[in-house]
Structures are given as C-alpha cells and as structure tokens.
C-alpha cells in the first residue's frame, strides 16, 4: 500500500508483535476484571471509573487498539493458511476494519473527555 519496492508487512508485523505482548500480559487481568463485575454496581462504577477517566482510559484504549491490530493481522494470515487466496481486497477490508475499530475507540474516548471538560 505504501511501498512498491518492498512489503509493508513490517508495519503490520510491528503492531501484531506489540499487540501480542499486550494480549499475553494485559488481557488476562482485564478479562478477570470484567468477569468480576457481577458482585456489585460498585465494582462496575469502580471499573467504569478506571476505564473512563481520561488518562487511564487513554492507556486502556491503546491496549485495545493494539489487540485489535494483533487479532486482525492473524485473521488475515489465517485466511491465507486456509487456502483462501488473499489479495489486496482482503487486505483493505481486514486492516480497514482494524482501523475502524481503533477509530471507534478514539472517538468514544474523545467524546467522554470532551463532555467532561465543557
């Protein structure tokens, strides 16, 4: 997409690698946290407080974005492994989806911060 003389894979591979680390290290904690929400609203509020306050949520959504790119990179390659002849269309769709999800996170975060300041 960007370079004709060589593969752009380093970009996606970089994101995939970072995402992989996040999934391996951070995701277990987060999943455990969400599973703990049944106890009480207070937990929810507390969880909400963490992931909705501007600074921590900025960290949180960047983790989620990295996980998104990691997951969709794997989806792209697994399609290839399942003998689907992936072309530029698949590339656009899959990585476009990743960009979309990332954008959604950022927009939500922006709105939350925007609403709160004004």
């Amino acid at each position, binding site marked *: 997409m960007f*370079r004709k*003389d*060589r*593969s752009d*894979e*380093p*970009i996606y*591979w*970089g994101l995939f690698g970072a995402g992989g680390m996040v999934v391996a290290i951070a995701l277990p904690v987060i999943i455990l946290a969400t599973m703990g929400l049944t106890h009480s609203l207070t937990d929810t509020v507390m969880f909400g407080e963490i992931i909705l306050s501007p600074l921590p949520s900025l960290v949180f959504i960047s983790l989620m974005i990295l996980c998104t790119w990691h997951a969709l990179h794997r989806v792209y*390659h697994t399609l*290839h*492994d399942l*003998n689907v002849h992936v072309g530029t269309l698949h590339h656009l769709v899959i990585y476009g989806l990743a960009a979309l999800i990332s954008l959604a996170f950022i927009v939500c975060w922006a709105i939350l911060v925007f609403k709160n300041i004004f």
Partner: protein
Amino acid sequence: MADKIKITVQRYRPEQDREPWDQSFEVEYTRETSLLEALNSIKDTQEPTLSFRWSCRMAICGSCGMMVNGVPKLACKTFLRDYAGQEMRIEPLANFPVERDLVVDLSDFIEKLERIKPYIIPKKGESQPGEQREYIQTPAQLEKYRQFSMCINCGICYAACPQYKLNKEFLGPAALTLIYRYNEDSRDGGKEERMKLVNQDTGVWSCSFVGYCSECCPKGVDPASAIQLGKVESAKDYLISMFKKKGE
C-alpha cells in the same frame, strides 16, 4: 531372530503410472538398522527398480530426505528400532513434484539457494586481506552465524513448511537462513544487496512462524529463528529506508 517390520513405499514410474501407488515390503532389522539400509536391502533383494537418492549414510550430504509416516526425515538417520510394533509409510519429500518413486524435483529449492547471492561480497572500500593473511574473526563473531552455516541443503524444512506448500514463490526456510548466515558474517558486505529479497512479501514476510521447519531440521539449524531475526532486520531496514531520501 531379528525383528520384522512392514514398510509401505510410495512408488511412481512416470512412463507407466498415471499417479503414485503403494507397494509393501517385510524387512528384518537389528538395533542399528537405519531406514536407508532397509531401503537398500529392499532394492538389493526384493525390488531392484525402487529408486531413491542416497550417498553418505551419516546425515551430512542431505540426499535422502523423505516422508516417514508423514514426518519429513533423513532416511539414513531414521532407525527402524524407533518404529517397532508400528508400520512405516514412506513417501517422497512433501511440497516437491515427484519425479520417480522417492525421488523429488528439488530444482526450485536449489535455484532459490543460488538466487540469494550465497557468497562473501567484500565490504565497500575494504579490500580483502592479502594472499597470506586471513580476516580476523573472533569466536564470538563466528558464533553469530555458525549455527546457520550447518544447513546441509536437504530440503526437509521446505517439506515441513505449510507456507511453502501454499505458495511456492516463498523463498523458504533454508534460503532465508543462508541469507542471514552471510549477512551476519563479519567478512561480508553484501547485506544491502540480499535484503532486497528478504524485504519482499515472498521473503521473510511469507513466514507465519509455524516453527515446524526447526522442529524437523535434522541438523538443529533452527531456520525459524533465522527468519524471525530476518524479520527484525527487515523491519529495521524498512524504518531506516523511510528516512532516507527517495532519490538515494
């Protein structure tokens, strides 16, 4: 009385057969008998037309790669004692066209080895040492590429690699390992030249790190590691090239 084992070999004779067919044999073996010795005894006593490649019988020449129960192995380093009580199914090396019986067409693999410029390219502006002098290379510098220089070109990693099965354009484990071996040799200056091949989609970027090539490599060369190191180098190269002006 030596034990017996049933060995089923996939046959294929281009003149007579439309497609491969199976032929089974019964072979006696002792603790030391290798599959290669068994195949040779079959050829000598039971089926002289059976054809396969072999030479050194000590796992160093790389001729006798074949599939044993679906796993790519060197026949000379596969022992019947490890298959006692089972059947052995012998097929030609996977992911290569079958020329005849257990002989495959390795020319794509050999051509790839030659395409990557597998020779020392002196560093620019640095002349090679004189006739009676050697490059100084400390054991630490040697260790950086030593493991990757042990590849015997048997093609087993190509048979093990699903990416090569799906896309024959992929340079493949051994060729990428050989590139890394020369790029990391302290005497070589040809890295920039070879990275052009590494950076392609058919270079390191076709590898999804299944890791089975390193699992099957009979000489412990670990091509999967060479490819990951290659990815790191290629990613660095990508970054650097971003800042370098286009015109350079």
